[in-house]
């Protein structure tokens, strides 16, 4: 049963050291009482007060926090609202959110806080249209990023699992609708056998969701450039300067290497083409193609031009690709004799051009300065929807897994077969929400296409 209490990270996760997790809804206090350890129970504390304490999952301390409590209707959404200020950085903020979800909230839909605020009369009427736009924009983004994240094998796997589930629901349902034609004798054994591998597959997806998520946050930054332009040196320089907080996880689904670096309080998720390089000597083109694919989804592109040789076909392609996108152009190799000049590049691109020497670490500060400027002036922004979508996916996978366990339990308790399809349908819907597919007439269609019914 889905709760009506929602939670999300309320701050853009990259732009500040403090992350705020916001909870809104009837069960907000019930949830915070379960996970907050401090001097007093927050449900008993007066409204509009701030409390120091720790967020814990059972015995495990997640973070040291400040919690602000606001009882409805005097809050943004006019519902009981709690804001948790987390201090441990991006990852910890997410851990706190996950803990909140674990203890009973559900991830907020795009724009849901705003929507509630409006529906509860907290926002001025003149803003109604704006609210609608927010909902639409956020939905579009969530949908896009959701599909983006799922390209390829994962959505394929989810489709396979769903296909198997709907087959079994259809089988049960057709037997219920037409008991004289289709029998369920001995069927529960068959169903048990079918569910086990589905559960394994979902658990596997859950594990990979955990791994993949680390890199899905921050400003997605892609370094492009022809072979030997100095992309990897640049990466090393950038990463090297911030070694202390670098997390490096090899991309699991794509063969690029991703690294997370921090420029002051901006989190950059840099996708190097290191993985691509290995294929370069086979076909040079592939390097550009692959980088381009990664760059399609990027928030920021760093184009490294090789100052030691004239612009070639590869450069031309990159230059036209970055037109109209957020990008910075680096003219690399100022340490050796330059064949290519800033002026030559200026004729070809409207983006900011910064001469650097990745090898000698010259000009790197200017690059960092430029990125910070772009960020603070709002030219590039990081959208936390990617992360939120991710949480939603994980939540749905967990829900589906739980529903399948319920089916097993019903089988074990020798419940009648019609009860199996309730939980199977639940799993089917949960998985469908990940790949953006509603149920509609799936079941009826499956029944008629797979089973021969009736008179």
């Amino acid at each position, binding site marked *: *049963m*889905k709760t009506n209490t929602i939670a999300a990270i309320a701050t853009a996760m990259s732009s500040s050291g403090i992350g705020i997790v916001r909870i809104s809804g009837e069960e907000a206090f019930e949830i915070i009482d379960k996970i907050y350890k401090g001097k007093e129970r927050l449900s008993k504390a007066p409204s509009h007060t701030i409390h120091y304490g720790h967020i814990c999952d059972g015995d495990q301390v997640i973070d040291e926090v400040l919690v602000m409590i606001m009882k409805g209707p005097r809050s943004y959404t006019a519902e009981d609202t709690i804001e948790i200020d987390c201090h441990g950085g991006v990852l910890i903020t997410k851990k706190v959110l996950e803990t909140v979800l674990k203890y009973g909230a559900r991830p907020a*839909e*795009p*724009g849901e806080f705003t*929507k509630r605020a*409006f*529906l509860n*009369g907290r926002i001025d*009427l003149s803003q*109604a*249209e704006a*609210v*609608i*736009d927010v*909902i*639409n924009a956020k*939905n579009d983004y969530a949908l896009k990023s959701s599909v983006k994240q799922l390209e390829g094998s994962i959505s394929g796997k989810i489709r396979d699992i769903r296909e198997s589930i709907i087959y079994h*629901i259809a089988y049960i*349902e057709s037997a*219920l*609708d*037409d*008991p*004289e*034609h289709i029998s*369920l004798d001995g069927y529960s054994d068959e169903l048990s056998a079918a569910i086990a591998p589905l559960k394994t597959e979902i658990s596997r997806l859950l594990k990979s969701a955990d791994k993949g998520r680390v890199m899905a946050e921050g400003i997605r930054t892609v370094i492009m450039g022809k072979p030997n332009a100095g992309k990897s040196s640049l990466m090393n320089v950038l990463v090297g300067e911030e070694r202390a907080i670098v997390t490096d996880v090899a991309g699991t689904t794509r063969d690029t290497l991703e690294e997370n670096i921090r420029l002051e309080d901006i989190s950059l998720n840099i996708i190097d083409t290191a993985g691509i390089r290995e294929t370069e000597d086979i076909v040079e083109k592939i390097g550009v193609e692959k980088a381009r694919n990664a760059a399609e989804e990027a928030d920021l592109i760093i184009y490294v031009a090789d100052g030691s040789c004239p612009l070639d076909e590869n450069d031309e392609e990159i230059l036209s690709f970055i037109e109209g996108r957020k990008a910075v152009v680096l003219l690399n190799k100022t340490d050796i004799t330059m064949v290519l000049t800033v002026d030559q590049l200026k004729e070809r691109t409207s983006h900011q051009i910064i001469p650097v020497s990745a090898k000698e670490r010259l000009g790197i500060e200017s690059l960092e300065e430029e990125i910070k400027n772009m960020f603070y002036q709002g030219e590039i922004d990081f959208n936390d929807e990617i992360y939120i979508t991710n949480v939603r996916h994980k939540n749905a996978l967990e829900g589906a897994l739980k529903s399948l366990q319920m089916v097993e339990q019903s089988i074990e*308790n*020798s*419940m*009648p*077969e*019609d*009860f199996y*399809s*309730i939980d199977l349908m639940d799993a089917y819907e949960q998985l469908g929400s990940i790949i953006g597919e509603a149920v*509609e*007439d799936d*079941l*009826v269609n499956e*029944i*008629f296409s797979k089973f*021969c*019914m*009736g*008179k």
Partner: protein
Amino acid sequence: MSNLEETYDIVIVGAGHAGCEAALACARLGLETIIFTVSVDSIALMPCNPNIGGSSKGHLVRELDALGGEMGKNIDKTFIQSKMLNQSKGPAVHSLRAQADKQNYSSEMRKTLENTDHLTIRQAEISEIVVEDGILTGVKSVSGAIYHCKAAVLATGTYLQARCIYGEVSMHTGPNGLQSANLLTDSLKANGIEMFRFKTGTPARVDKRSIDFSKMEEQFGDERVVPFSFSTDPESVQKDQISCWLTYTNEETHEIIRANIDRSPMYSGVIEGTGARYCPSIEDKVVKFPDKIRHQVFVEPEGLNTNEMYLAGMSSSLPEDVQFAMYRTVPGLEHVNIVRNAYAIEYDCINPRQLHSTLEFQSISGLFSGGQFNGSSGYEEAAVQGFMAGVNAAMKVKGRPQYVLDRSQAYIGVLIDDLVTKENLEPYRMMTSRAEYRLLLRQDNADLRLMKIGYDIGLISEEQYNRLIWKEQVIEEEVKRLESTNIGASKEVQTFLEEHGSTPLKTGTTLAELVRRPELNYVMLTNLDSKRSELPDDVAEQVDINIKYDGYIRRQQQQVNQYKKLESKKLDPDFDYSKVKSLRNEAVQKLNLYKPMSIGQASRISGVSPSDISVLLVFLEHLRHQKQEG
């Protein structure tokens, strides 16, 4: 030349299962009602299968009965075999199905109609609806007679421009060779109503004397028959029953069908109408499921006073000679003699999205419709729509509020909501999987769910209502008693549990906990429960189910609460959605077309996304604020 001219409160067009329920409801509510049929001899005719009920259809009949309809009472009077289907499964999918004596069913219903006050029966074909400024004012018959009325219910079944087809033969008749109604369609179209053409089919009726039953499996009715109607005394339906018989097609049958498939009008393109997937002809089954080496054939009596037998599972539109050949390959039917051959029938019906949930046309005030005319199939689906259309027509005339059952209240609600909100491209059949909250919508609790509404409408008697109130109270008290009655691990209890293959108790528990064990139930615990007073079967059944499936029931109840929230946000059916900025074009089109009555209904329209719904919610709120301030 002058024409006959009469005035009634309500006109019903068609006297099939929908028309009869509509007419009875209106007349019983005291309104002057006239019902038209092309043949008085075919009132409540069962032109296809000889049974009432079946999975989920049985639910419809019970619900109809709880509201004050007639079908359940009529089948209780005329059944010749009865079965509760799915008894080994959960209570939600138990469903009654009875074999009817067709002729008797029809004449009993006719008798009821004939003896109902305020009801006039007239044999005539209605050819026109009269609409003035978007309001229905009357109907005209082929003779030119005019019948003024305040409301009308169209229930023309499969008769509109009907065409019966088998092989190369095509005849412009309704079912069973009855006269079709060929003029009304044009009048409807002229009034802007969008028509569909649907198709259905029926198998051959054969002579019982030509069947060798020794080669078939005998199918008996239940030993203890449960009546359909809540007002039928259960003892009165315990009577001798007639058997049905089961046999199978085989490769030889399929070979004949395959060899002649080019002569099937379905495959040669003669039939244009859309058929239903759940009711495939035998040739469809053979073509679509080539791996199945045999299909079941149920041989069912058409009545007590006839030798005709119905071959369920083998409907067909193959030519007559092929029909003889294929039926005669089936064990037991080697020498079978066909009385009436199988055929397909095509007919006009409406696109039901033109209706409100009250079954009134969106564009014509006072015009209602029900049954196969609305694109459904089945006697039971027809009857419940006819009833709801009749009730709402009556309410309209009386100036009382209309009745719409929602998806959490009844299968009837699911059926009508599906018809008016979903794209309906084939004859619609009720299925248990279409009901989201089926654990709550059981056939055993139809009275508890709906009888109060029936009483409110005015079609349930004071006596029935009082019994219902008593029943509710007793159930509640008994459930409470069991939840709070402790039971210790005494020797008597442990022995009882052992005898029933149930784990012995380690500590004390409650009687309710024991009821929840899959291997036990309420009745079995009688001897352990010294304080129990004797309860009628139907009450004991409710206590058992309420305790046993408590967890699941509560879960669905929570889902229903969520669902109700969106249903309770009403929309103005005449609202122009193009005024809402930010709604996607597709959503605007669909919403303007379907004219949903609530946000919940809007969310079920295909092509309307969750973000469209959010936009609508915000917009609604905006409107509400404006009104408050204005």
